[in-house]
């Protein structure tokens, strides 16, 4: 297969529709995913600001907001149902529709063929189909805000009976049905994408691009896609079963004797714990589907700015595999106090903490990659370095939670919220931004502003710590998550005022993202023209013309002679040796 596709004809489509809307070109699709994720991020971010407004000043009145949300904030005071819809939709949008779409589908699609020297994805039509399946998913999910009862309100985890019984919470009406439909479409789309990624990586690599010469981002995409393919089907099944429970009178997740609204429901024989198992069987691998490509980007952004290879390529690949395998068997750590058999809890605790070993190896390799470097603190490098710090902080928090014994106290508190925001919110976001600053010149032929980029980084990095490190300590103090206000409990009195500080920091964090938006769109039209290889990097995408044409490589696909990290090779004419340089010119060092 290798090299065979170079013979394929790649005619640029002429019509506007085929070129920009229903395109089968992986680069156009990647940018479509990216922009979709950006739009969803605006919604998800706004929800976060509303959440923080409520938690910072739970008693305050906001008459202006009453005009925008006449139902959710009637009289200017947020009502608790609306609050629950906000947290549910914030989590759902951010995890599935921002990070998954932007980082995995967006960068994955744009970069994968360029990184491996292919002309396109293995199945370009399937690729287009996967994008156009996720668009209705976005529309459906967003539409749920406007239906009777409002959007889903059972948390992004959608635990039944709350998500199964309409009387349980207002959002459990049409809003929850739309949530399930939107998720099902999203999963269908993500599965198509995953199949495409795996096939492309295995089959479409150009001549000389052996597996051990793949950039680490591609390795992480491969492992993440396999994880996604294994983990998503059970959730699809669970979502369908839940739809049956909701609308077909079945009882997969509902036991007998449920008492709602003055009557006993006719269900019998099901178990709410079944949903939790199915959900986390997906949910835990899914978080790795997101973190692995983020780590891949962080790892790959370092060498161009340290001007040296990363430390421990092989061990990093092995560790990624170990994380992938282990992440399939640790889902129960979300259920230590759920009523699951405590013996099983022990197994999950031991398995979960085993993951810290390969994770720590990757973290160590990231830091060790700086040793001896000629470090250039350009914007993408700042984001990659920030991602290392976040990964460390989030991973260390995980040790508290994976330890079943301490999780008894910490489960469902703000400690968990702090932990997963560093990981799924922090590492991924920094990778998404770092990747944008880095590949923007390739995607759009212009540079982004360094000055705004650095300002964006520092505001994001510092306010992120202020928000989410603090939340770890609130969690130690026992502050439960998913609370509309903390005013009802005396034991929270000593710590609850810290929420105002957190909210202010969160607003800074939110505002900082506007700087990014300005930078993005300003640079799109006004940024300095980019050279073909502005970062003097070695990977294949920088060999392609900027922006790359349809089919990527012109007449001949590049041939690869070395690994992607040949920086500062002794005796080489430049301090970077692209992967296409043959060993006769510069020696191969790996």
């Amino acid at each position, binding site marked *: 297969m290798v090299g065979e596709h170079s013979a394929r004809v790649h005619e640029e489509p002429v019509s506007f529709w085929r070129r920009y809307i229903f395109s089968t070109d992986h680069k156009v699709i990647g940018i479509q995913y990216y922009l979709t994720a950006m739009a969803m991020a605006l919604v998800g971010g706004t929800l976060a600001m509303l959440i923080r407004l409520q938690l910072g000043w739970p008693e305050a009145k906001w008459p202006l907001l009453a005009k925008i949300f006449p139902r959710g904030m009637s009289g200017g005071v947020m009502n608790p149902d609306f609050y629950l819809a906000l947290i549910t939709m914030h989590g759902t949008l951010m995890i599935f529709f921002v990070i998954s779409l932007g980082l995995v589908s967006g960068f994955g699609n744009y970069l994968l063929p360029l990184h491996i020297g292919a002309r396109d994805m293995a199945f370009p039509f399937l690729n287009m189909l996967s994008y156009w399946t996720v668009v209705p998913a976005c529309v459906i999910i967003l539409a749920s805000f406007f239906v009777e009862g409002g959007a889903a309100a059972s948390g992004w985890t959608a635990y039944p009976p709350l998500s199964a019984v309409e009387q349980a919470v207002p959002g459990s009406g049409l809003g929850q049905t739309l949530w399930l439909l939107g998720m099902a479409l999203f999963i269908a789309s993500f599965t198509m994408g995953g199949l495409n990624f795996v096939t492309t990586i295995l089959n479409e690599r150009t001549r000389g691009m052996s597996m051990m010469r793949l950039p680490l981002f591609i390795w992480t995409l491969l492992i993440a896609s396999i994880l996604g393919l294994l983990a998503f089907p059970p959730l699809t099944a669970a979502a369908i079963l839940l739809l049956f429970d909701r609308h077909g009178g079945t009882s997969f997740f509902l036991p007998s004797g449920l008492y709602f609204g003055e009557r006993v429901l006719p269900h019998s024989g099901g178990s709410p714990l079944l949903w939790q198992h199915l959900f986390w069987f997906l949910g835990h691998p899914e978080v790795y589907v997101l973190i692995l490509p983020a780590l891949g980007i962080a790892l790959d952004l370092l060498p161009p700015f340290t001007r040296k290879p990363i430390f421990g390529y092989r061990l990093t690949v092995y560790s990624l595999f170990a994380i992938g395998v282990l992440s399939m068997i640790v889902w129960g750590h979300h259920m230590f106090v759920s009523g699951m058999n405590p013996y099983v809890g022990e197994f999950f605790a031991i398995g979960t903490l085993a993951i810290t070993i390969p994770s720590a190896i990757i973290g160590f390799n990231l830091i060790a990659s700086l040793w001896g470097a000629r470090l250039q603190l350009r914007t993408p490098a700042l984001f990659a370095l920030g991602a290392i710090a976040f990964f460390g902080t989030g991973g260390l928090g995980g040790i508290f939670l994976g330890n079943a014994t301490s999780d*008894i106290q910490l489960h469902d*508190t703000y400690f968990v919220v702090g932990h997963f925001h560093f990981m799924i919110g922090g590492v991924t976001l920094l990778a998404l931004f770092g990747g944008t600053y880095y590949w923007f010149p390739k995607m759009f032929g212009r540079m982004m502003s360094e000055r705004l980029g650095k300002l964006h980084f520092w505001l994001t990095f510092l306010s992120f710590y202020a928000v989410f490190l603090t939340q770890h300590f609130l969690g130690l103090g026992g502050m439960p998550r998913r609370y509309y206000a903390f005013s009802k409990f005396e034991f929270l009195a000593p710590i609850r005022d810290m929420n105002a500080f957190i909210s202010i920091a969160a607003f800074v964090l939110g505002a900082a993202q506007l700087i990014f938006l300005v930078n993005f769109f300003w640079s799109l039209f006004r940024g300095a023209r980019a050279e073909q290889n502005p970062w003097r990097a070695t990977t294949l995408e920088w060999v392609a013309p900027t922006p790359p044409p349809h089919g990527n490589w012109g007449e001949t696909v590049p041939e690869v002679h070395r690994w992607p990290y040949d920086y500062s090779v002794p005796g080489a004419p430049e301090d970077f040796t692209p992967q296409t340089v043959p060993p006769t010119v510069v020696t191969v060092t790996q």
Partner: protein
Amino acid sequence: MAEGRERFGRTLEGFFFAFALFTIALVGIGFGMRRWLPPLASEHGAGIDRMIRYLILTVGVLFVIGHVALGYFIWRFSRQDRVTYRLASPRAEKLWSLLPGIVMALVAEGGVLLIGLPIWQKYYLHPAPPDAVLVEVTAEQFAWNIRYPGKDGRLGRTDPRLIRYDNPLGIDAEDPASQDDVVQLGVMYVPVGRPVHVRLRSKDTLHSFFLPHFRVKQDAVPGMTIDLWFTPTQTGEFEIACAELCGFGHFQMRGVLRVLPPEEFQRWLAAQPTFSGQ
């Protein structure tokens, strides 16, 4: 000239990054040394606190080392004009990776195996001692129902179809064991120094029985009865919170736990009306 200024700018930025990371480490130390856990009031909670304190110490040290090392590396290597160390040998890479591997095996895996799981087993895998006070806790949107078995030591049968305004648990009046049951709403009384055996149930959705001062947290699952036990070590009034999302009133699903001296508890219990009305 220009190169010198560029280098100066780099160094300054590297220093700033290092400074930020050192500050974060310091803030971490400052926060980590404060007491966050609510004051302890149960026996097994001492074990959980020991586990948490062990983690705060060991993981805290790793947090500080990690941030300081990263900051130092950024500072030091942003000053360099050339690469001074390029590629480690495969052997060196393997040897170095032993370091994070062993540290995690000791701190994380060792912590749970040597400290965590013994406490977990003591708490979960032993049934409540026979002298424990039996209390049934039934969660509903958004309240805690408390029931004591009365003198016969047996809880009467319940059936959701019997639930009425004046019989919120649906207790079966036909069952002889029901007659002396004592039902309370929102306030749970227990004696100090004696194990309390809780049978946890839910009428509608998931809830979680969270006693922050007792290091007790257990989800209440409809369709299941979950047993747990703990021993209060302090008298006084404490709070019961709900820790699993259960609907719009989740944040105000507050209960009260009153821990009394044993005789006072007996007196209180004897003075309560029973299910059959006397």
